[in-house]
């Protein structure tokens, strides 16, 4: 499959009163057309910021994309002019955000909010856009879409709002959908529905998806490949089955240990990852996971391991991944 998006050495910083926050520290990955990539990590690890950087939606100031390339269909989005990035946003790359309660404008109808992208990118008239908005709402499973299209966001439930957000994002048939924790703010049953909708529409429309989450359980059912992020670095990247069956990074191992399993022995406890992620203002010079790692050696304290191939199509940023694999068996 052809490459749709290639991110190279992306670095994003935030200049705050306390100092420079190094949110994304040289992230590189590629995404094929129609592929689903899971971006996993705990809060503040740079997963949202890296994807917002791709769309140049980082508030500047205080944010700043320091270096890197974002090649989308061959063009470097970090270097095109404002006009061109706007023609990509909402049109070729669309985004669904975490909190549907606050991500819709309270004073505009759902119709206005879906239609404006259609009028802008597809040159539709108001009537055409309205008709299409109704179809889109039907597509994401809003009952009585013809009537509900004129509602305001507060008249929708949380799940319905997220459906409306998805309808809005898909309105111009984007090649890439970035879903930034779209199910985090929802009930578990609604979560499952939203995941099903995205999976179905992805199949129908053939778009690529980057699904940002801190929940490995959610990602297992959707993603083709997973990038695990920690402190602004990608620490492990592999096919989803490979990640679950053969994790090589101690952090990934920790993440897997902290999800409940149906096949675990009764009364066995979840194993949390102890400690806290490093301060992004003062990153350690060695491995960022050093303080919390059970496999650490002297080398880890002084040298930050690069992301390198550990197995077939499986990269990991750890000096001791071979030990991790051996010791994990026991």
């Amino acid at each position, binding site marked *: 499959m052809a490459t749709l998006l290639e991110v190279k050495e992306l670095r994003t910083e935030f200049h705050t009163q306390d100092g420079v926050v190094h949110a994304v520290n040289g992230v590189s990955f590629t995404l094929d057309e129609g592929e689903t990539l899971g971006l996993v990590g705990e809060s503040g690890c740079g997963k949202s910021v890296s994807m917002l950087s791709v769309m140049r939606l980082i508030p500047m100031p205080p944010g700043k994309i320091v270096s890197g390339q974002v090649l989308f269909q061959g063009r470097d989005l970090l270097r095109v002019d404002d006009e061109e990035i706007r023609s990509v946003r909402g049109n070729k790359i669309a985004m669904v955000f975490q909190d549907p309660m606050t991500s819709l404008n*309270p004073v505009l109808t759902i119709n206005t909010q879906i239609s404006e992208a259609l009028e802008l990118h597809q040159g539709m008239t108001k009537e055409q856009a309205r008709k299409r908005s109704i179809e889109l709402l039907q597509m994401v499973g809003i009952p009585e879409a013809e009537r509900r299209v004129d509602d305001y966001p507060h008249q929708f439930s949380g799940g319905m709002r997220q459906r409306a957000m998805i309808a809005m994002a898909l309105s111009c048939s984007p090649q890439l959908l970035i879903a930034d924790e779209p199910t985090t703010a929802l009930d578990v049953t609604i979560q499952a529905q939203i995941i099903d909708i995205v999976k179905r529409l992805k199949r129908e429309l053939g778009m690529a998806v980057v699904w940002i989450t801190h929940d490995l359980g959610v990602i297992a059912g959707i993603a083709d490949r997973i990038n695990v992020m920690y402190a602004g670095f990608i620490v492990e990247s592999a096919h989803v089955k490979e990640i679950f069956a053969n994790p090589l990074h101690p952090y990934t191992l920790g993440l897997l240990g902290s999800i409940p399993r149906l096949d675990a022995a009764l009364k066995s406890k979840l194993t949390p990852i102890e400690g806290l992620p490093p301060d992004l203002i003062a990153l350690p010079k060695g491995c960022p996971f050093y303080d919390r790692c059970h496999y650490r050696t002297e080398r880890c304290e002084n040298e930050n391991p690069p992301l390198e191939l550990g197995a077939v199509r499986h990269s990991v940023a750890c000096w001791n991944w071979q030990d991790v694999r051996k010791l994990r068996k026991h």
Partner: protein
Amino acid sequence: MGTFILRRLLWLPVLLFFVSVITFALGLYGPGDPVQVMLGLHANPETVARIRQEYGLDEPFYVQYVNYVKNVLQGNFGYSLVRYRDQPVGRLIAEHLPVTVQLNLCAIVVGILIGVPLGLIAGLYRDRWIDLAVRAVVIASISLPIILLNPVLSFIFFREHIVFVPLLDRLVSIGPLLPQVAGRWEGVLSPKAILPVLIEATGVIAILTRQMRAGMIEVLSEDYIRTARAKGLRERVVIVRHAMRNALIPIVTLVGLMLGGLVAGSFLVESWFDVPGVGRIAYEALFARDYYVIMALTLLIALAYVLANLLVDLMYGFLDPRIRTMG
């Protein structure tokens, strides 16, 4: 909606009752006496007593109050006792009220036209030099007592200024920006009205600028602004359609409440500029203990604020769909 308005209006007489009792009692039991003011300090006590009786001012409080209310319900607001002696208060106010309303309305309109764009710019360019300049001017104008505004603005507008223009490399004289006009009040659209309107608008400008700036800053950090940008909308559309509509909601509230003050004339501004408005009558009436004039003006202001509040609530429902469905 209908019941909401009705319920609010049913409270009106209750409110007016309390306001009138308190004002009436303060006037009657407070220091000072209109008849004394009318006749002077050295008046013959017998004459004073006779005149008090003539006007019914010797009756007990409740009798006077009941008589007053009876008259008011028949459209008679009593007579001026002192300055506009024996003129009906209703006519007195009817003559002077339009001038004050026009002046205040102009001040509010000028305040909106200057304050909202200033606040918008300050909010959009937060912490840049233009924001700092706007904030400095706003703080200065809100802190400056109104009594100082007159000489300051007079200095700016009515004097000739010698300014050094670097571009021409010489001193240039500018102004006076406005001709100094003396004489009678010729309505709110005459040059003489510029300064009083500006002075009265200063407070409005300060309040609206601050609110608009704060509103824009708050709204621009909302998630739905990011959503709008993620759609690829132009920044102008993001600001006008998505941000400003939300930021203007509290502005409407403030302006609505200001409308309640339309009928209250400024004592100072109206006396300085010889504006024949209710502010001047109120000022004179207060010093002369001219009961019925004070009563009528107090009731009028209370009524205006109640109606303005009601208007604000109705406009809220119009502007904010979240409130519309609840009402």
